[in-house]
């Protein structure tokens, strides 16, 4: 199909911006009068993050509990396998959805359940029937309690949002301090060859559309579990 009115619109824009608008701090009203110098990075304005690794980990844990994300910090593969087996029994998982990844493969196999791997391109309908989607991720962010994942790192777009429970497995060196670091990572890791999809996940799906009362599990997963592996991950 065609490009539409590309040149006409660009022409109008060029014409329009020939006169620059007043800069935000220049004489545009009462609240703008005390001009602020623009620092180089938003890091200086956003909520602060502890500099040491332990402080970050504690902040991440605290954010998870505020967001109602289930957070487990475990020392190794065995601990993770036990935690997953526990969830499997408690929630009576039947079918798993996952993707192939060196950190996930042994864990998923240890659960001994029927598993749909996205690499085999299951239909959305079958993916929807999974009890849980287990994925890896690109990073965790202490500042906000978020998970950064992409279509490439976490098995595409649907696996982490369609099943009612999303389990993320990450290693402790993936924990980043803040949002600027997360975007830097995305930029540096993928260069010009981006995945078509990336998302920052912050807590289980939620809505407040009825009387502004918080309800979890609106359209995405109602449960979000993060399993963080401490050593030899």
């Amino acid at each position, binding site marked *: 199909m065609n*490009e*539409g*009115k590309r040149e006409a*619109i660009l022409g109008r*824009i*060029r*014409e*329009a*911006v020939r006169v*620059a*608008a007043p*800069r*935000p701090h220049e004489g545009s009203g*009462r*609240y*703008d009068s005390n001009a*602020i110098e623009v620092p180089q990075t*938003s890091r200086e*304005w*956003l*909520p*602060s993050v502890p500099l040491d690794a332990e402080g970050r980990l504690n902040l991440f844990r605290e954010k998870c509990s505020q967001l109602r994300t289930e957070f487990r910090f475990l020392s190794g593969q065995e601990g993770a396998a036990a935690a997953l087996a526990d969830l499997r029994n408690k929630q009576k998982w039947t079918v798993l959805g996952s993707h192939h990844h060196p950190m996930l493969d042994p864990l998923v196999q240890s659960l001994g359940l029927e598993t749909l791997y996205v690499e085999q*391109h299951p239909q*959305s309908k079958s993916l929807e029937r999974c009890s849980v989607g287990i994925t890896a991720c690109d990073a965790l962010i202490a500042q*906000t309690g978020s998970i950064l994942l992409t*279509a*490439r790192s976490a098995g*595409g*777009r*649907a*696996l982490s*949002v*369609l099943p009612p429970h999303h389990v993320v497995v990450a290693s402790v060196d993936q924990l980043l301090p*803040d*949002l600027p670091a997360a*975007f*830097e990572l995305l*930029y540096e890791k993928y260069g010009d060859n*981006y*995945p*078509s*999809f*990336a998302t*920052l*996940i*912050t*807590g289980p*799906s939620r*809505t*407040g*559309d*009825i*009387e*502004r*009362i918080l309800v979890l*599990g*609106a*359209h*995405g*997963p109602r449960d979000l579990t993060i399993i963080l592996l401490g050593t030899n991950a």
Partner: protein
Amino acid sequence: MSFTFASKFKIQATKVTADLDHRAKIRAALKSYETARDERKAQYQDWQAARHGAASIKWESLNHLDAYLVDFVTKLSARGTKVFWAGNAQEARDYIVALAKEKRAHTIIKSKTMTSEEIHLNEALRQAGYEVVESDLGEFIVQLRGEAPYHLVFPAMHLTRHEISDLFHEKLHSAPSEHPEELTMIARKELRFKYIQADIGISGANFGIAETGMISITENEGNGRLTTALPKVHVALMGIEKVIPRLSDLALFLPLLATAGTGQQITCYNSLIGGPRQSDEPDGPDEFHLVLLDNNRTQLLADAEQRDALHCIRCGACLNACPIFRNVGGHTYGTTYQGPIGSVITPHLRGLMDWKHLSYASSLCGACTEVCPVKINLHHHLLHNRRNAVASRPDPSERAAFRLFAFLTRYPGLVNRLARISRPLVPFVRVVKPILPAPIKGWLSSRDLPKIARESFRDYWKKR
């Protein structure tokens, strides 16, 4: 026409303002938002600097919009995105309807996009014979009611759980429920298979990133993610002003939007989409279309004085803070974008003379300007619109009134004498009120004229 929009506003505003239930509902809905927002703001190292930084980034991109748009589009096209430039609403609608036809679509699922409300996309698609389903819970509710969204961010904030329960019972035949949780699950169940069935998913875009050629979508429910993951074709609709220069700018905008919009530190899902499914990815749409919409934005862009109105990230904070919005309600505006920002931009998007009355739907208290996370000079722009409207079509009665005022201030003795003569007449104003001409009658309908003092200050001063 001008008479119609303005008088509709007046009638509706009078009615809603007197509705105390409505007022209580809105106040209750905003109370928890206000607490959460203030807590979040307090966690920033420097909220004011963050606002200023965001405004500077928006200034930069808007004043070089042509260059950033070209970058943005070039990057997107290189990765297989089909970009369509729509000059107006009609062109955007036609493109999307033709696409639906080409794909032999049946069901179309939508995640929240105010831009699609602006171009009345749902009506166009429905008339062409497609089933269109809104998937955001609030939008789903107002769609079932056949209503427009009440608020940019909280489309159904004017409804109680009882009203929603009744609505679901009537339209979806669900069992009545008092619990927001159960009501949400009814919608979830209803919509689950729509995502899987749908042939096309339509979304909006909160930001476009020039540096990398991606759109950014902010949401909480996960409906945006499902809409852009499952259907074979994804169409995103985006105003041309939404482009920002760098990927790292999102580190500022995403938390700012959430804090100002809903009182969250960051919303639940912030997704970046930079094309259709790539060859090494297991799923995702085969086609990704981006419709870039002008629809008079370039006209607002050409007004350097008000260009900053295009900074808007549609957070809704100015609506929440506005005493007028809170009293007249979102539907009274009769516009796609309600509240202070709607009052500023609607005259540019849809005609100054038809919509200039919105410039007066303000107490000029400046609460909107104070809360705006991208520092749009909202209440001053309302004054600019008033000035522009008067300049382009002066009102003779206003002019006469100001002449009279200027004349009287030059002759204080005359004022003194007039006051003395009219003093005994003041009590009779109440009697003749019903037959007075329109603006005076309106002013007096909820007020009494003040009493005129027996002795004027001038006389008192002379005698002293």
